[in-house]
């Protein structure tokens, strides 16, 4: 009995000591600068993400944004953040020309910078940031392509509603490469008009009846495509994946028309940089690569959590 007690006491002491080893100084301060105006609700998820990370790690994370979304104002905010000497800055790279100067200055002042959400891994490297946390569009498309290939897809239609944006084309190209097929004419320029998109999808599918799958790039192209598939009777029959989430998309996932939606998971874009910076400041450890916050696949199984935390953490 006495032995057990001593053992217990020893264990307790051990536990107590291991709990009470603050080998690091708590209370680091980080600043997250976004390009979004006050009214943009998408960024609420980001705010919740940094609040949670700050709470769990015992650090302060401040959220700052230009109230009107003016990127020139954002440059001033980054300069201001650097002047206030935080331990690190997390920022989006919405306009490389405008923001590179202030970010490079911050880096040169010895402040660790992580780029999140907007920008590319290459641009992040160029301004001297530690890493990029976001969803590289090609990789997201590639991962989706691999997943579809596993589900037996060998041909597809990519409904590109924003063909002038390189990121959109990257998504389609990545998907084709993931499947291991040529993109070729499987990507259509659908335009932005809902009825036009719907008719183009209908026309393509009747001209190419062997098409296994449809990929849409967001609510703009997904919503009319759902209508088109309902009209030609392929809804639920053809393999259907989409980027980004929206209320119609969530409904379609629930009813089985859409197999999966790709979420870029903004929560991770806010939460992970804080974790990375804190651990770098406390222990000097740093992951060796950029972090892909997406693609996170939302399927019928995970939908309950998406609906529960929509607008909060999802």
């Amino acid at each position: 009995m006495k032995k057990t007690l001593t053992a217990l006491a020893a264990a307790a002491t051990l536990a107590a000591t291991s709990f009470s080893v603050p080998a690091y100084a708590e209370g680091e301060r980080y600043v997250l600068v976004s390009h979004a105006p006050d009214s943009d609700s998408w960024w609420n998820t980001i705010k919740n993400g940094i609040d949670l990370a700050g709470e769990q790690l015992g650090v302060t994370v401040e959220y700052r944004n230009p109230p009107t979304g003016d990127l020139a104002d954002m440059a001033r905010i980054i300069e201001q953040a650097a002047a206030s000497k935080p331990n690190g800055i997390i920022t989006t790279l919405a306009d490389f020309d405008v923001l590179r100067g202030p970010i490079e200055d911050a880096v040169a002042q010895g402040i660790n910078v992580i780029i999140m959400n907007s920008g590319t891994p290459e641009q992040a490297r160029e301004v001297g940031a530690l890493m990029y946390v976001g969803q590289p569009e090609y990789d997201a498309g590639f991962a989706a392509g691999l997943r579809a290939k596993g589900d037996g897809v060998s041909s597809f239609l990519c409904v590109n509603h924003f063909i002038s944006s390189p990121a959109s084309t990257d998504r389609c190209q990545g998907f084709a490469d993931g499947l291991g097929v040529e993109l070729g004419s499987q990507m259509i320029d659908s335009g932005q008009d809902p009825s036009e998109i719907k008719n183009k999808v209908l026309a393509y599918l009747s001209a190419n009846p062997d098409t296994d799958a449809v990929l849409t790039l967001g609510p703009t192209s997904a919503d009319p495509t759902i209508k088109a598939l309902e009209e030609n009777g392929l809804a639920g029959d053809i393999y259907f994946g989409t980027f980004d989430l929206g209320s119609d998309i969530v409904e379609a996932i629930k009813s089985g028309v859409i197999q999966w939606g790709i979420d870029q998971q903004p929560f991770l874009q806010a939460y992970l940089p804080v974790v990375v910076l804190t651990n770098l400041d406390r222990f000097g450890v740093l992951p060796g690569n950029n972090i892909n916050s997406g693609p996170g696949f939302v399927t019928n199984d995970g939908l309950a959590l998406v609906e529960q935390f929509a607008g909060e953490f999802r």
Partner: protein
Amino acid sequence: MSETAEANETPPVEDERIKEMAGFRKAMIRPELGAICGTILVFVFFFLTARDSGMFGPAGILNWSVVSAQFAIIAVGACLLMIAGEFDLSVGSMIGFAGIVIALLSVSLGWPVWASIIAAFVICTGLGAVNGWLVIKTGLPSFIVTLATLFILRGLTIFAAIATTRKTIIGGVRDAAEGDWLAPIFAGKIFKGFFQWMGDHGWIETFSRGTREGMPVVEGVPMLIVWAIILVVFAHILLTKTRFGNWIFASGGDAQAARYAGVPVNKTKILMFMFTAFCATLFATLQVMEFGSAGADRGLLKEFEAIISVVIGGALLTGGYGSVVGAALGALVFGVVQQGLFFAGVESSLFRVFLGIILLLAVILNTYIRRMITGER
């Protein structure tokens, strides 16, 4: 003004139109008194709450000075126009428009940058004249006319950018401005040697890593601040030391009475609209040259920031009363508060709450001071 000076030179006869005032009271009671008090108050407040946040370090001072200088540039224009009795709500749209004009001409059409800048100034002051002409000819409130211009210019800016380049942000101005003779006047920094010298002596911080290691964190005084100072001094002299300055006051105070007295009210007002447009274009040029890109959404809500600065500075919304120094101090208060709240670590969504409170306090204080000056009840 010169006539009054002559009148004063014949001392014995006292002019019964000029009221005698005690020296101290005369020195104290002026339109910008409220703004002076506000400035002191704001600095004391932030010195107490954000002293060790880097706000009063070199980089911090540069940060809020630049922001204040930006406000000052548009506030000076808005101030003179407001004293002349009119408003310009198209300032923000004009900033976006001027920026896109410069970027389109220089990057997309390959014009030399100096020509693009001059073209932007000509076009925009021309548009300012159109604003003024419409107000004078139609007799409509300038509030409505310039509100229309606000929408027209913003729409045109977005359309022009997308129609020509398929983008709303046009970059590459920095490369185009390489070696241009006019661009450094808007983008450079002065006193670089002095700051380097201070950095070498360890009086101000230097960059600790990267290619710019050893260079001071504050490289020099940006031209933005120089322009703001030039503009404030120019406008102050224009308003208080020249006959034209008296015309501005008269046009805003009572336009009809001024007309009877032979003041060219229409000309004065149109010129003030052009001056406001000039200030907006200057703001845009400085911004485009500094950042190297123009965006169709730049300058959103800047017209209100200009008006707020002017009102904090003690000008009367109905015209005929105000001061450029007050407007400049108003811009300083605005800039320091906006950036200072970040330094103090206040939740950024509360910024507007503070802004509203300061505006309200400033207007109440200014009204009280104005009653003391004019004796109105």
